[in-house]
C-alpha cells in the first residue's frame, strides 16, 4: 500500500505548495477587503519572471524575477482598485487577461515560437535528516524543495501575526469596517496597498515554485486556473491561515488523485479527474454555506 500511498501524499504536498503560496497571499488581501481576481494573471506573470530570471542568472534570480513580476502586477492592480476605486471583480478579470496575454506575447518573442521554453535550472528536493525517514509521512512531508519548508513556517507566523499584532489587527479592521479603522487612526489606504502587494509577492512566488521547483520550463497559460482555485481555497479555509493551508492540501489531494487512480489502473475517464477539484470546490462551498465568515467589507 505504501508504494501507492507515498507517491500520492508526495504529489499532494507538491501540488498544494504553489497553491498555498497564492492562497495565503489572497487570504491577506481578502482580510483587507480586497478580492484579487487578477491572481491568475499574477501567477502566470510570476512564472514567466521565474523562467526569465533563472535562464539569465540561476535559481536565485529566478525567484527574484518571480517575486518582482508578481509585485509589479499587483501594484498596478492596487492602483486601480485602491486609488481609482474601480470594481474589484472586473478589474481582476482584466488583470487575468492582461497577465495571460502579456506572458504569451513575451514568451514567444523571448523563447521563440512554440510553447516549451529552453530548459532552465531548477531546485530539487532536500531531505530533512531523521524526519524524512519516518514511515509513510516522512518522505512526503520532509523530502521537498526548500520553498515548501518556507511555507511550513509561513503559516503559523501569518496566523500569529494576524491574531496577535497591531499590524494584523489593523489588517482585519480594514477588511471588516474601514470606517471604524480610519476612526482609530489606521491608514486604511496604505493597509490595502500593503495587503495587495503581499498577495502579488505570494502570487509571484507561486509562479516561481511552479517553474523552478516543479515544471522546469515556461508554458503559456501554465497557471491553469490556480489563481481562481486559490480564491476558492481561501473561502474553504474560512479566511484563516491554518484553514487555508488545510484547504490547499485538500486541493493538492484532489489533483493528486489522478496519479493514485492511474497507479490503481481504474478504468474511468481521465476528464473526471480534471474536473474533480472544481466540482469538489462547488460541493464544499455549498456545504459550508457561502460567506458566513467573510470579511464584512470584502469586495467593496
Amino acid at each position, binding site marked *: 500500500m505504501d508504494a501507492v500511498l507515498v507517491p500520492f501524499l508526495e504529489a499532494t504536498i507538491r501540488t498544494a505548495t504553489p497553491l498555498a503560496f497564492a492562497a495565503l497571499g489572497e487570504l491577506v488581501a481578502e482580510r483587507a477587503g480586497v478580492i484579487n481576481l487578477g491572481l491568475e494573471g499574477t501567477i502566470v506573470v510570476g512564472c514567466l519572471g521565474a523562467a526569465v530570471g533563472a535562464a539569465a542568472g540561476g535559481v536565485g534570480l529566478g525567484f527574484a524575477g518571480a517575486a518582482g513580476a508578481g509585485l509589479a502586477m499587483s501594484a498596478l492592480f492596487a492602483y486601480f482598485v485602491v486609488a481609482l476605486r474601480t470594481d474589484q471583480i472586473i478589474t481582476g478579470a482584466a488583470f487575468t487577461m492582461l497577465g495571460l496575454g502579456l506572458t504569451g506575447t513575451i514568451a514567444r518573442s523571448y523563447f521563440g515560437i512554440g510553447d516549451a521554453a529552453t530548459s532552465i535550472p531548477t531546485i530539487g528536493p532536500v531531505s530533512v535528516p531523521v524526519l524524512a525517514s519516518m514511515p509513510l509521512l516522512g518522505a512526503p512531508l520532509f523530502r521537498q524543495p526548500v520553498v515548501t519548508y518556507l511555507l511550513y513556517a509561513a503559516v503559523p507566523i501569518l496566523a500569529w501575526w494576524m491574531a496577535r499584532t*497591531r499590524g494584523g489587527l489593523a489588517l482585519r479592521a480594514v477588511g*471588516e*469596517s474601514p470606517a471604524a479603522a*480610519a476612526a*482609530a487612526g489606521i491608514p486604511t489606504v496604505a493597509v490595502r496597498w500593503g495587503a495587495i502587494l503581499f498577495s502579488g509577492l505570494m502570487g509571484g512566488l507561486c509562479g516561481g515554485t511552479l517553474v523552478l521547483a516543479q515544471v522546469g520550463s515556461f508554458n503559456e497559460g501554465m497557471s491553469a486556473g490556480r489563481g481562481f482555485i486559490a480564491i476558492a481555497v481561501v473561502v474553504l479555509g474560512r479566511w484563516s491561515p491554518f484553514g487555508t493551508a488545510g484547504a490547499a492540501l485538500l486541493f493538492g489531494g484532489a489533483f493528486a488523485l489522478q496519479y493514485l487512480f492511474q497507479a490503481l489502473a481504474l478504468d474511468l475517464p481521465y476528464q473526471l479527474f480534471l474536473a474533480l477539484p472544481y466540482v469538489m470546490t462547488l460541493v464544499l462551498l455549498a456545504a459550508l454555506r457561502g460567506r458566513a465568515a467573510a470579511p464584512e467589507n470584502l469586495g467593496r
Partner: protein
Amino acid sequence: MSVAPALALRGISKQLGSTRALEDAHCTVRVGTVHALLGENGAGKTTLMRIAFGALEPDAGSVALHGATRRFHSSRDAIAAGIGMVHQHFMLVPAFTVTENVALGSRRRFNATQVAARIRALGVETGLAANPDARVRDLAVGAQQRVEVLKALANGAQVLILDEPTAVLSPAESEDLYRWIRRFVSDGGTVVLITHRLAEALAVADDVTVLRRGRTVLAQSRSSVDERTLVEALGGDAAPVALRPGVRPVDAEADIVFALEHVDVVDARGVARLRDASLTVRRGEVLGVIGVENSGQRELLRVLAGRLEPSAGRVTRPARVGFVPEDRLADALIPTMSLTENLVLADAGIQRGVIPWAERESEARAVISAHEVVATGPRSPVAILSGGNQQKFVVGRERAVSPAALVAENPTRGLDLRASARVLAAIAAAADEHRGAAVVFSSDLDEILGLTSRIVACHGGRVTEVPAPADRLDRAPYTRALLGLGA
C-alpha cells in the same frame, strides 16, 4: 483664571463639497466641564468636532489643546494628544472582541492580556463594565456605547467628544450616561456633548455653544441662558414648529383600516421578534409607535405595511399600503435612477407589459409640485436631491400609491425642522377627514406626542397600548412603557 481651555477652536472654516459647512466658527471648552454643542441638523456640529478630532483638516482656523496650538493630520494624532470621540454611528468593528476594538486605537504593541486587564480595571474605576472577550456584534446598543467610551479612555482621552450619545439610548440608559459624564468631569475630565436636544443640554451642560448654518451664534455659560434664548439661537424664524396639539379623538365606530390579531414574527435565526401582537387602527386615526432599538417596532411596521409575512396570526390591511422606511436611500429609493423611475419603482412588483413612460413622467411631475420637492425635473437622479427633498418625494409617492393607508418609520431622521414639518403634515394628511389611517414610529417622543391620536409601545416584541395620561404632555407613562414597565 490662568488655566488654558482644554480645547479651543478659533476661526474654523470648512468647505465640504458644494456646501460651506463651517464659516468662522469658534468654540472654547473649559477644563473639567461639560460643554453642550447645540444646533440643528446640518448646522456643522459634527463637522466642527471632527476637525477637533483630526478626522478632517480645517480650511482656515486653529485648534488649540490646553493652550498649545496643534495641527492634527489624522485621528491618530488627536488620540495621542488625549482626545477621544464617540461617533453617533459607532466606529466599532462588529466582528472584533471588545479587547480587539479597544486595542485598535492604541499606539502600543497589541497584547491581548494587558488590554483585557486594562478594560477590567477601567470598568472598576469608572463603572463602565464590559466583558473584554465578548464580540461587539453580540452586544446591545448601550453596551456598544460603553465600549466606545472605554476605547477612548483606554487610549488616555482627557477630552471626550460625544456625538448625540442618547439618540440610541432608552431614557434610563440616558440618565446613567449623564450621571457618568458628571462623574468623569468632576474627576477632571472634559466632555463635549453634541446634541440637538435642548433639554439634554440644559440638564447636564456647564457651557453652551450654538451653531447655526456653520457659524457660532451663541457661546455662554449654562447659568446665563434660558430655554427661550437657546430656541431663538437655534432656529430663529424656523423655531420648533408646533404640530397641531389638538389631535383628533379616535372614532370607535369608524371602519378598521389595520388590524393585527395574535401576530408573531420569528426571524431567520429563530428569534421571536414580535410576540402575540394585536391592535386595530381605524379610519381617521394616526397611531404612534414607540420603542427602543430592537424592541419589535421594526417588524410591527413591516407587517402592517405588508413588507413582512408574520409567522402566525391574522393581519387585516388594505391591499396596498404606503411605506416610508427609515433608511430611505437603501430601502425606498434607488439613488442612481431618475425621479420618474423611482415613482415607477413603487409599482415594480405588480406592473406588467410595457411601461407608459410619458404618462408616468407627468405623474412624477405632479408629485414634485404637490409636495414641493425641489428638483430640476422628473428626469434628475434622486442622488442629487437633498435629504429633505428625497423624503418629501418618498412620502408623496407612497401617498399616491395608497392615499388612505401609510406606515412611516422615523420619517424625519436627518431632516431639518422645515422639511420635518412638511413631511409630518403629509403623513398626518393620510388620516385627514377620516379618509384613511397612518401608523408612525419615531424615536423622538415629542414628535409622536404632537402627531398621533393613540400610542402603542413595543418592548421585547410585545405591543401594548399606552393609556393617554390626563395631562397630554406628561411623559412618564411613555418612558415607563419604553422600558416595559406597564402603566
